[in-house]
């Protein structure tokens, strides 16, 4: 069951929540709507569900115009961030609710309802808790019940609004994997909203990146991560080292020195901002090496399969910070120590014109918070 939204516009007073968005959600795919808070992703989801009405534009479900169809008749399953379980009903009654309220003619017999609810509770692996009340369940269990409840009425599409947003990190990861396997088993068309890029990249077939009510990029997780279309996408999907300078032939001249470029579609003399991911920076201990630039090691965070190295440069006030991600083997071979001076060599630089970047807040270096990109 495909979903298509066409030229959707939604305003809240002066604020434009969704600015002329057109998107296709193909049948059977799990699509992640990703963006910072306030980017319009939840509003778009609610418009698809019919919980909110668009100021302009149409929503098509399975090719038919559903813009004026009431939520009740849209047959969409909606899962809320805070579960929205009915507290005065048992788990069983919660899941059975959608079936029991069907008009007399369409309502299954009570025995059929029991069987269906039983199946769904097995599916979400909570059959043992059928007679409990929501207050007696953990967050992860509640969200699974909410999902079972939405599935009970056999929706044409599933819409999930930050389904794991209120859960702690470990449960979140489990549920992510579980949702993915559930989706692979049932193949319903689903759209889920998240502000967590890791979650979106890990779970989705397709990722839609949104910012300021507009779509920045649509693609598979690999596509959007490897080939970000805009500086926003680049910055949102991971940590970034930023270099400001001018293109000179096959080089980018920056304050730190001269960085080699591996592609050259920027004319010589243009101002540009270079984006380099932490794993695209390499460290050389030989200070006599003419390529790259000098920096000083501040901290080495070595746990797991990778090591993160934080460095400060010789330029800028306060001194520029860089982050490098190395494999453990490489880090061990380099045998770095805090205070050591090394050379940093970017393996790949992605260039954007500065005026494109100025618009966007980019998270420079994971863990250091959000900084406004300046040039």
């Amino acid at each position, binding site marked *: 069951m495909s979903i298509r939204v066409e030229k959707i516009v939604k305003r809240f007073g002066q604020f434009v929540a969704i600015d002329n968005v057109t998107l296709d959600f193909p049948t059977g795919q799990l699509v992640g709507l990703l963006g910072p808070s306030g980017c319009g992703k939840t509003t778009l989801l609610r418009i698809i*569900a019919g*919980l909110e009405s668009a100021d302009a534009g149409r929503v098509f479900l399975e090719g038919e115009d559903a813009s004026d169809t009431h*939520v*009740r008749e*849209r*047959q*969409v*399953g*909606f899962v*809320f961030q*805070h579960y*929205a*379980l*009915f*507290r*005065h009903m048992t788990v069983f009654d919660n899941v059975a*609710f*959608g079936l029991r*309220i*069907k008009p007399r003619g369409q309502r299954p017999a009570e025995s059929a309802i029991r069987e269906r609810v039983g199946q769904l509770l097995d599916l979400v692996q909570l059959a043992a808790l059928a007679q409990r*009340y929501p*207050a*007696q369940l953990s967050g992860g269990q509640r969200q699974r019940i*909410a999902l079972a*409840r*939405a599935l*009970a*009425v056999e929706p044409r599409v599933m819409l999930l609004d930050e389904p794991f947003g209120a859960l702690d990190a470990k449960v979140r990861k489990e549920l992510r994997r579980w949702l993915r396997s559930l989706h692979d088993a049932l193949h319903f068309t689903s759209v889920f909203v998240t502000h967590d890029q890791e979650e979106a990249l890990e779970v989705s077939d397709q990722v839609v990146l949104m910012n300021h009510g507009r779509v920045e990029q649509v693609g598979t997780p690999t596509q959007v991560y490897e080939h970000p279309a805009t500086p926003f996408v680049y910055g949102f999907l991971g940590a970034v080292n930023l270099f400001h300078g001018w293109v000179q032939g096959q080089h980018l001249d920056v304050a730190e020195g001269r960085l080699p470029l591996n592609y050259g579609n920027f004319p010589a003399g243009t101002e540009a901002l270079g984006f380099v991911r932490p794993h695209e920076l390499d460290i050389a201990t030989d200070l006599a090496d003419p390529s790259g630039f000098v920096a000083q090691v501040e901290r080495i965070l070595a746990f797991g399969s990778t090591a993160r190295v934080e460095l400060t440069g010789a330029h800028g006030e306060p001194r520029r910070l860089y982050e490098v991600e190395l494999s453990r083997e490489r880090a061990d071979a380099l045998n770095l120590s805090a205070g050591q001076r090394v050379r940093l060599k970017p393996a790949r630089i992605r260039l954007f014109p500065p005026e494109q970047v100025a618009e966007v807040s980019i998270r420079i270096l994971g863990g250091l918070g959000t900084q406004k990109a300046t040039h």
Partner: protein
Amino acid sequence: MRPGKRHRVLPGFPLALGYTLFYLALIVLIPLSAVFLKSATLNWEQFWSTVSAPRVVASYRVTFGTALLAAAINGVFGLIFAWVLVRYSFPGKRVVDALVDLPFALPTAVAGIALTAIYAGNGWLGQWLEPLGVKVAFTPLGILIALTFIGLPFVVRTVQPVLEDLDTELEEAAVSLGADRWQTFRHIVLPALLPALLTGFALAFARAVGEYGSVIFIAGNVPMVSEITPLLIISKLEQFDYAGATAIAVVMLVVSFVLLFLINGLQIWTNRSRER
């Protein structure tokens, strides 16, 4: 530190509890026991003949009947009132919100005179209703209106905060599962509001049973028809029949207590059937 002595984080427990019990005894229990003691000066036959006199029995019917009915009416309309105040925004909403408390603030005698003036045969509303055969003033209907008037804030003010806390996501969830408006109200909203609604009902009822000032004007106090029990107590007092007055008071007290007990039981039961 003496062994066995438990230290509490919150200080002053013995003092606070002692004060509470003393206060309760002084303000509530001693006056109430005085009622029982005074009525005990009658022997059983005297007591029984006083409280079961036809005129007194008729007054029970009027008092408790109209009070229950008024509380029920307030249950329905107070809920609608609270709903409108919480869920919609409209010009003058704050004024309407403030007006809800008017029956609280208004001296009951003022309310009684105002209602009588409106509903009497020559009043603003009375003059249109009377030709239709609806006589309001000086009938039980008038009492009902007065009791409804004074009971409204109790239901609105108990339901309002609960409704404010009620997540609209619950209703959205119900609707997305295919529920229509009535089903959403019946299965989702009402169960969540029921405990508060019952509290409001109980408060409105308790207030209506004891109401005197606003009722006596509009009631007309026709014996056997529109005489409320508090009025009979007053008239017995005026005849210096203190024991008789307290005997009727004891009956009112016991009936009120039993009814409140039942409503409380109902409340506990509705609370128990949710969240555990």
